[in-house]
């Protein structure tokens, strides 16, 4: 079972909004694919809710990415920064 983050330290950061935008998915479409309510996706993206391990795996399977590419304990660096720092 997931949880409501009690403190900023307990917050699980995620890239859901970026991944969703890349694929042109609405929250409703992602929610339908994962099997959750529409608002839950919004709360996940806003950091109001941290997913259960089971939901995190479902997300990873849906996006075909490793879990650590979607969720992290530390804030993600901007995608552009990562891309350009690797190519430089």
């Amino acid at each position, binding site marked *: 079972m997931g949880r409501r983050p009690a403190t900023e330290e307990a917050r699980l950061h995620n890239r859901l909004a970026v991944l969703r935008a890349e694929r042109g998915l609405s929250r409703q479409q992602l929610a339908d694919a994962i099997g959750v309510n*529409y608002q839950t996706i919004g709360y996940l993206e806003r950091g109001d809710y941290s997913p259960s391990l089971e939901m995190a795996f479902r997300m990873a399977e849906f996006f075909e990415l490793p879990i650590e590419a979607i969720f992290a304990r530390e804030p993600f660096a901007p995608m552009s920064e990562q891309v350009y720092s690797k190519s430089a």
Partner: protein
Amino acid sequence: MTDAAVGRIRGAPEGSPQWISWREAITPLSRASRRRWVVFYVLLLLASGALAGWGEELGLEGFGPPIVAVIALFLVFGMLRRGTRRLAAIDRPSLDERDRQELSSAFRYAYPLFLAVMVASLAVLALTLPDAERQSRGDGFTSIHTGHFLGDVALVGLLVWGFLWAVFLPTAVLAWREPDPVLGDPVDDQGVLDGPSEAARDLALAAALVAAVVIEATDGYAYISLLLLVAALAALAAWWRHAFGQQAVSSTLQAAGIFLAIMGAALLIVAAFGGGATTTAWISATGMMLVGAPLVALGRKRA
């Protein structure tokens, strides 16, 4: 959450109604609005309890079962249920893991709150009820027990009081804790619409509810209070529809308005030129025009 943002929720997939009903018009969407209505419900329930328990002693006309107050309680409870997507409903299907967690937390918080309310209620009863004595006679002796007297009606009232709190508290906790809905999705927010202020809506509705309850309590005329309540709900729904670019009233009501206006105008002409018109005829004609004309105006389709 800004009021404009509240309006945008209407564009979200779950809530993009073709025709905004009065229920949707009064549903508290933001957390601030939900919290306002939780406080209002608590105050209304306390006032209703006081009215039912001590209305007669206070010299109020509307003592006894406060019908309008009970209707107002159900109305506000329904608003909170809709505002929390009816998560606390027992038969609610397809809850996801977050919903189940929030529901579980709501019941966990509601239980001690309910206990506190019941203990406080019993304490107030013990302090305010008149003392009573009961004698029981045995073989050759009579024993006297002292305590408080609670009649049948009061006992039923106490059960209803407990039931209302037990049903309300989980929803109240959910309404208090649930965050603001999430907005700002360029893909989802295709039907972006700016709505009226939730704070203004809440203030208007609360004022109507309080007025209705006070009229019932002081005058004892429940039907005037009910009329006021229905008129307030209809006006709020019309306001909300108007703000979202819809017809403020339905086509049926508009047709009724046209009929009334025509009948009123015809009656006025007859009263003016026919001679021998009674005061009742004048009042009826004017009333028809006054009710019909706004309905015609509100029913016009907006560009």
